[in-house]
């Protein structure tokens, strides 16, 4: 009696296991298909034959022509260059802040740590335009004005010079950060940095403090232990953080729209360029930009998966 019960229950659990595996697998496949379908529908939209051209005198273009045109469009070149550069600066700046901040969070017993944690996570959870509007309002305050005035002129000049050279468009911002090209980094930074801190802190947490302690008993200073032991050990996490912040910064739209504005050939990063096309009723050029962003994201992910390898993020 007990034997048959046991065997039947184990048979039952075998069927259950199979069902479980099938269900989990099926959901994964359905989700993957859905994502692929949604993304690929853009290609289908561009490829649709436009046989309603007889309605007006506008010459109907094929999707391929739109695509080639988008690749050649100097405004798109500007947007791509600006996006890549600004996101790179944001990622570097974020890591400069995130590595020490994450280390402090991971190693020190700080009073009110949960409060700090919450504040750090806010930019991740909050709708991104909130950051943009907050920045816009911050720069109205006395502190904001002071920050504008404290910005050294040589820095402003150097940024203008480098940006003009790099972008092939005259950039002549003054000390004011609002609506400036260099201000894009600020708008992206406040969102991206939190992602960076999270990614790096997770790595420091997994490494633990024992290795540093050993290094210090062997004669390293705290500083040396940090740079010679912790940072090299955490490199995968740091690379992962760099990619996270770079990708996040590339994707940033709301904060840039509010804080830097949507100005063609000035603050036109790729998501802004897409918004500008779309809000002038130019849907196909917007879709072309979307496809370019999709390709850049895919290449980035693949490259860093190869480089950063077996990190916890992927």
């Amino acid at each position: 009696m007990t034997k048959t019960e046991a065997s039947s229950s184990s048979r039952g659990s075998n069927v259950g296991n199979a069902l479980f595996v099938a269900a989990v697998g099926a959901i994964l496949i359905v989700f993957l298909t859905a994502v692929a379908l949604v993304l690929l529908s853009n290609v289908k939209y561009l490829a649709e034959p436009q046989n309603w051209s007889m309605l007006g005198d506008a010459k109907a273009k094929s999707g391929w022509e739109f695509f080639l045109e988008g690749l050649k469009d100097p405004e798109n070149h500007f947007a791509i260059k600006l996006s890549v550069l600004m996101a790179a600066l944001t990622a570097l700046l974020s890591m400069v802040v995130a590595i020490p901040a994450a280390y402090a969070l991971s190693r020190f017993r700080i009073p009110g740590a949960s409060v700090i944690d919450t504040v750090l996570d806010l930019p991740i959870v909050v709708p991104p335009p909130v950051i943009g509007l907050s920045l816009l309002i911050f720069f109205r305050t006395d502190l904001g004005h002071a920050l504008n005035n404290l910005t050294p002129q040589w820095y402003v000049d150097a940024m203008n010079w480098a940006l003009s050279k790099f972008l092939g468009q005259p950039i002549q911002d003054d000390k004011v950060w609002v609506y400036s090209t260099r201000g894009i980094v600020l708008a992206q930074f406040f969102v991206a940095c939190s992602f960076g801190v999270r990614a790096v802190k997770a790595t420091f947490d997994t490494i633990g403090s024992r290795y540093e302690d050993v290094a210090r008993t062997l004669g390293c200073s705290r500083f040396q232990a940090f740079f010679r032991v912790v940072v090299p050990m955490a490199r995968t996490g740091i690379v992962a953080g760099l990619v996270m912040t770079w990708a996040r910064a590339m994707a940033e739209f709301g904060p840039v729209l509010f804080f830097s504005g949507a100005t063609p050939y000035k603050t036109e990063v790729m998501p802004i360029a897409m918004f500008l096309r779309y809000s002038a009723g130019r849907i196909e050029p917007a879709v072309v930009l979307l496809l370019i962003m999709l390709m850049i994201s895919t290449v980035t992910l693949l490259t860093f998966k190869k480089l950063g390898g077996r990190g916890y993020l992927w």
Partner: protein
Amino acid sequence: MMSDARRIVIVTLVCVLILVGVLIFAWPGNAGQGKAGPQVRLLAHAGAGIQPPLDELGKMFEKKTGVRIDYSYKGSGCLLPDICVSEKGDLYIPGELFYMKQAADRRIITKSRPVAQMTTVIIAQPGNPKKIASLSDMAKPGMRVGLGDAKAIAIGRTARTVLDKAKLRKQVEKNVVMSCMNVVELGNAVKLGHLDAAIVWDGTAALYKGYVTTVAIPAKYSQTSTIPVGVLKYSKHPKEAAQFMDFLASKEAAPVFEKHGYQCCLMKSKATKG
């Protein structure tokens, strides 16, 4: 372990260097512009739907005077809050007079004048599969209709005036499945096939020439509106800003507006204070 780390660093550095090199040197572009010293640049807060004529006119103006216009484009309803919060910018070019009045009420405009006119039209899907020929067709049961938000955007209020005049407002409002904050979204939704019909400006319909069907609204119901330009009190170059305002209202600019589906109002246009 260590050589592994070094390899990653080196590969990353080389990749970054190659990328930067390619971007700077091999990219087709026009580097080396603007070496002729600092240029006067005006920041114009402008409605996103008027991009095509404004972009063109901005370039014409820069060629003529050397003053560059940087547009900050957004839905017209978002421009005023932007200006009030940032207290920056030289010009204000919303898509409709309604927004200019709001700005005048807040006393942030020193001068303004109308530059172009628009009229309400119906747009329908390419080929007009639902056979929309009049306002009453929009009231037929089952139609998917889009109107602008009744409070926040000009076309929303104006379209309702049109429908009130035609005594169709209640019936058409029953069919409204989408309401938006920017008139161009209505055009996009019709073009993408998500709406059967919408009431927009003729200047908006012109953005989709050949891609949507435009149906005129009889003159007794139709409404006309104006695109105004104003000089902001925050302007650091009020002289140049006024110059650009006058340029937009000039004979030179008229054909550009007309090309993009607007009517010009040369006769009425005169700068007014405040």
